[in-house]
């Protein structure tokens, strides 16, 4: 029951009883209650005139970071007693320290700072307004207003530090870089032997080959290393995503895409990004830190979605990527995606598929439930079969269990096996 209704009802009842019985003493009993209400009405604060301004410790942070929020509230009207100021946290932000509300008294012109910290998830959580609740004397009634205090934080996905990712596209760009160019010239790795030409350094001469041909000299050639075009494709189809409680496969895929983009750009390559899901979100290829920022911003807003058109990979817009360039697809993949990838390969693209493992993630969460292990084994067999078909089509595959470091998964699948590890005798086989 509202306090005001109760008090008003009692006063009315005593008045009516007093009038009905023509008894002034009953009216006298109502007078303290009337005085109480009159005092509350007389000292009721006017309309709360507040302005608010919001600032953040940093408005561009990595996912999971803690951000300090400072809301400056200024009283532009009359004095206010016992004002409740409460900030509304947007989705994707959770309180990490302090309190997002306070009860204060504000003199005219006085400024109050509401300070707290939030932990933010990937995206761009948008803070809108603060809620202000002020009460009349004795709290008989409450006034509630919303004061605009807009602010937005850009929460970029975390990018793991990766060592150089070994890629071998069919075509490279004209500038020196880290990617083997399949062309002889100056480099590090041995490429071939050719006849000596004027100007070749003397230490390149292959004396062993030259000794077999007394009238000619031969020099070693090394594989040129150049920059490459890399097209990153992030699979954002709803059916490729798995979400079980806090475990979310797409978040891992986004993190992997951010890490790969950072690694390729740090090596000097030209990198573009395509988010393939509800629609096509395309970031034109570019170089350097600016491009990194562009890609991370797109990844910050990437969400999974459904689309009948993009339900399968058949509509991958290959014209976005130069022929012969390296395409890196981050996707758990489905069986029906294989033909589209084989077609890409046939068109001359070098493909690398990074597959975040949904089965392992689900098993971690559902461990102990009946039938989970058997189902996981069946799915693992399917994945292994798909992997074999991809490898047969000349597509490099990296299977990534999301709990292990991405760098380790890339090393294991793509790294060269050192000579001293190539012929390790199996245990027990003496």
């Amino acid at each position, binding site marked *: *029951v509202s*306090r*005001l209704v*109760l*008090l*008003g009802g*009692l*006063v*009315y*009842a*005593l*008045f009516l*009883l007093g*009038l009905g*019985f*023509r*008894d*002034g*003493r*009953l*009216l*006298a*009993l109502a*007078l*303290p*209650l*009337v*005085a*109480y*209400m*009159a*005092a*509350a*009405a007389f*000292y*009721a604060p006017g*309309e709360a005139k507040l302005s608010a301004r919001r600032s953040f410790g940093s408005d561009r942070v990595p996912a999971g970071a803690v951000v300090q929020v400072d809301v400056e509230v200024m009283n532009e009207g009359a004095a206010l*007693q*016992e004002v*409740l100021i*409460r900030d509304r946290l947007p989705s994707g932000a959770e309180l990490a320290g302090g*309190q997002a*509300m*306070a*009860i*204060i*008294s504000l003199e005219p012109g006085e400024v109050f700072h509401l300070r707290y910290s939030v932990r933010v998830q990937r995206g761009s959580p948008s803070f809108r307004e603060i809620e202000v*609740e002020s009460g*009349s*004397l*004795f*709290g*008989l*009634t*409450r*006034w*509630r207003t919303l004061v605009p205090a807009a602010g937005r934080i850009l929460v970029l996905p975390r990018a793991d530090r990766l060592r150089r990712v070994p890629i071998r596209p069919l075509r490279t760009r004209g500038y020196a870089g880290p990617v083997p160019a399949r062309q002889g010239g100056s480099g590090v790795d041995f490429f071939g032997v050719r006849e000596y030409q004027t100007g070749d350094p003397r230490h390149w001469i292959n004396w062993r080959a030259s000794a077999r041909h007394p009238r000619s000299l031969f020099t070693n050639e090394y594989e040129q290393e150049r920059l490459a075009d890399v097209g990153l494709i992030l699979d954002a189809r709803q059916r490729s995503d798995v979400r079980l409680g806090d475990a979310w496969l797409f978040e891992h895929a986004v993190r992997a895409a951010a890490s790969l983009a950072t690694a390729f750009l740090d090596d000097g390559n030209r990198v573009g990004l395509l988010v393939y899901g509800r629609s096509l979100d395309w970031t034109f290829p570019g170089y350097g830190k600016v491009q990194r920022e562009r890609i991370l911003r797109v990844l910050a807003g990437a969400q999974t979605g459904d689309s009948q058109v993009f339900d399968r990979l058949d509509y991958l817009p290959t014209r976005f990527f130069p022929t012969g360039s390296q395409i890196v697809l981050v996707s758990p993949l489905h069986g029906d995606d294989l033909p589209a990838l084989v077609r890409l390969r046939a068109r001359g693209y070098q493909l690398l598929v990074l597959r975040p493992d949904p089965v392992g993630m689900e098993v971690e969460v559902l461990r102990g439930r009946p039938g989970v292990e058997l189902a996981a084994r069946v799915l693992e067999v399917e994945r292994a079969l798909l992997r074999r078909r991809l490898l047969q089509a000349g597509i490099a595959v990296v299977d990534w269990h999301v709990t292990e470091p991405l760098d380790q998964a890339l090393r294991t699948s793509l790294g060269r096996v050192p000579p001293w590890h190539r012929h390790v005798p199996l245990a027990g086989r003496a």
Partner: protein
Amino acid sequence: MIRRASHVTRGLAAASAIAGSLLAGPPLPVVAAMVAVSLLLAALPPLLAGQRQRGWPAPLTLAGFAGLSALGVRSGLGPGWMLVSVIAALVAWDLEHLEERLSHPAYAGTQTGRRALERAHLRRLVAVAAVGLLLGSGGLIAQARVTFVLALLLSLLALLGLSWILAFFRASGE
């Protein structure tokens, strides 16, 4: 502190109603009923609050004592005691609401603000209770003979004023 003050004022309301009943000495059933209901009103709300049935014990205190006082006045008990009982119940009701407000999480860790609010509130409440006591006492003491038409007009005026206060709160409140 507030909780203790609230219990004390509720006890005062009950004591005042019981004292008025005993001192007046009307028929025994009325006295017995007044004493029983007063004790019940004083003791029941804290017990119910302890059972976590918050929300209605405080309104029960005020409505109960107001009704009891009206009944006592009509039964010929001392109206002064009944007036004190109503004022004490009003103060208890207010303090219980204050305590509820102060338990808001926004007050956590701000002991200074909490104490300041408590002091300011108690000052105002005491002033209003004193004014209420003065007005009520004046109303009980002052004898005036008015014609029926004048009484009707005054009553209408009072009801209009009261309606205006309620409408004011309703319009400006949430």
